[in-house]
């Protein structure tokens, strides 16, 4: 089988697993909500990886835009209008707008300086959410609201009480976002991002305005991560400042690296492993993160290209 048909077979297998997940998850010791969580955090990790794996720029502050998406949803439903689609729009707009403003301030930075500044800006948003108690309820988080059933006019989808319905709503959004990312990465614009990742100097001397393209990639990446954040708030019917804290950003990076940041699906695999480990180990010990961390270190030591990197290598050789 050549590389293209291999990749198509892989894509088909992944979609098949995702579409059927609510029906097999329970038979392997899982539950539907775990599947939903994997989808949402995988979307966040894949969004981060748009920047990390395909532009070569490491952000440690993506949780800020994830969290803004989440707070946008919660505040819209709680204070403005009880509509799930509108809440998502507001959340995504908030996250993307913040990223667009922060972007020009950091797009000239590289490497560790870029990463540090993304943390710094991320923590700014975290402290706003933490301190502005009258609006955000601070550390207690926004409670006493919940996602609203989807009203299509002719029919209503009860995503609130039917966990499978909510899973499929998330899957539809996930699919649209992932397809859009894949489409962008295969475009001339997407190839300029690969060019920047591969060799910034060469990219610049081909006439690519590198800083501007990094800014664009950053905004696109944050747009998708805020979609994930919006879904995250809907899943929990709750949001608190931890959604925007830097350790949440770190989790996205871990998921992407764990699964393989050079492969498109890597972060999905990484998110699935991370969350299944969390789910399983945290039922035995509060120190679940030590075990996830140990696993992460082992993967990075022995498979620096992540789980999917192993398969990718084998496919090439």
């Amino acid at each position: 089988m050549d590389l293209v048909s291999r990749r198509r077979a892989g894509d088909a297998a992944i979609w098949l697993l995702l579409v059927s997940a609510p029906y097999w998850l329970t038979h392997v010791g899982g539950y539907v909500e775990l599947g939903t969580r994997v989808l949402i955090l995988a979307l966040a990790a894949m969004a981060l990886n748009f920047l990390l794996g395909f532009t070569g720029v490491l952000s440690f502050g993506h949780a800020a835009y994830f969290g803004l998406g989440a707070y946008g949803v919660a505040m819209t439903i709680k204070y403005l209008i009880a509509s799930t689609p509108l809440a998502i729009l507001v959340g995504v707009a908030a996250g993307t707008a913040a990223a667009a403003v922060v972007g020009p301030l950091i797009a000239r930075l590289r490497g560790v300086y870029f990463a540090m500044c993304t943390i710094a800006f991320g923590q700014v948003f975290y402290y706003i959410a933490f301190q502005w108690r009258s609006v955000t309820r601070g550390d207690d988080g926004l409670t006493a609201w919940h996602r609203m059933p989807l009203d299509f006019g002719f029919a209503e989808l009860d995503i609130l009480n039917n966990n499978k319905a909510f899973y499929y709503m998330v899957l539809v959004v996930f699919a649209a976002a992932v397809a859009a990312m894949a489409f962008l990465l295969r475009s001339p614009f997407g190839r300029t991002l690969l060019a920047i990742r591969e060799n910034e100097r060469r990219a610049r001397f081909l006439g690519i305005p590198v800083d501007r393209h990094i800014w664009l990639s950053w905004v696109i990446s944050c747009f998708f991560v805020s979609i994930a954040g919006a879904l995250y708030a809907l899943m929990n019917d709750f949001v608190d400042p931890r959604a925007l804290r830097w350790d949440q950003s770190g989790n996205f990076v871990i998921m992407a690296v764990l699964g393989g940041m050079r492969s498109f699906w890597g972060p999905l695999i990484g998110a699935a492993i991370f969350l299944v480990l969390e789910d399983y180990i945290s039922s035995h010990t509060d120190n679940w993160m030590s075990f996830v961390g140990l696993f992460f270190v082992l993967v990075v030591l022995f498979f620096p290209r992540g789980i999917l990197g192993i398969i990718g290598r084998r496919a090439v050789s």
Partner: protein
Amino acid sequence: MSLLRIENVSRHFGNLVAVDDVSMIVEPGELRAVIGPNGAGKTTFFNLITGFLIPTSGRIVFDGSDITKMLPARRVWRGIARTFQITEVFPELTLHENLRIAVEVAAGYRLKAWLSRDANGEVKARVTDLLEIGGLGEKADRMVGELSHGDQRATEIMMALALNPKLLLLDEPTAGMGDQETYDITQLIRKLHHDKKLTIVLIEHDMRVVFHLADRIMVLTEGAMLAEGTPKEIAANEAVQAAYLGKVA
């Protein structure tokens, strides 16, 4: 009108004068070599032309406009393309992808999210064209990082050529190459110069290459211009022989 006019350009790094009051005029269609011992300021001189560095004093005019302080990307858009002493390519992309990116950027598609069927066809045709010029056709689907040094260098030159430059700057195109690779690259440069009528300025250490290719040669020592002239004149120049050629030969 001359294509490139460099007027009394200097570049200081603190107390060090890397380029000292150098002037050079390059006519369209010319192949100019810049030679000189290590540390003579050749690469710094190149970096001033491409905008990697800005001169401390002096003026650079390209194709009728002053580009002395222009950003590198803008100079590329105006028609200056370069290669580097250490080959700069996209190692983990295929040769085809490397060229494709260059072709798409040159066509103004860098912000496009999709291409029409026609545009796509034109891009592919241009890539095929470049692969053929570079003699790289059968390696199109290989990762560039896995290619030989000579093929990587040819790839880099083809990426520069993809930009349809008015001026091509080559920084030591045969550095670190064996005889066969040096010969191949020399033939490639010769082809670009003769068949494509491309204006080329190159830095080179290999004197066989320089005397084989160049229309005119400029010699730099310690940042300053020592001599300038045709290969014959340079070969006969006693100051050059004393400072440079004598040592090499």
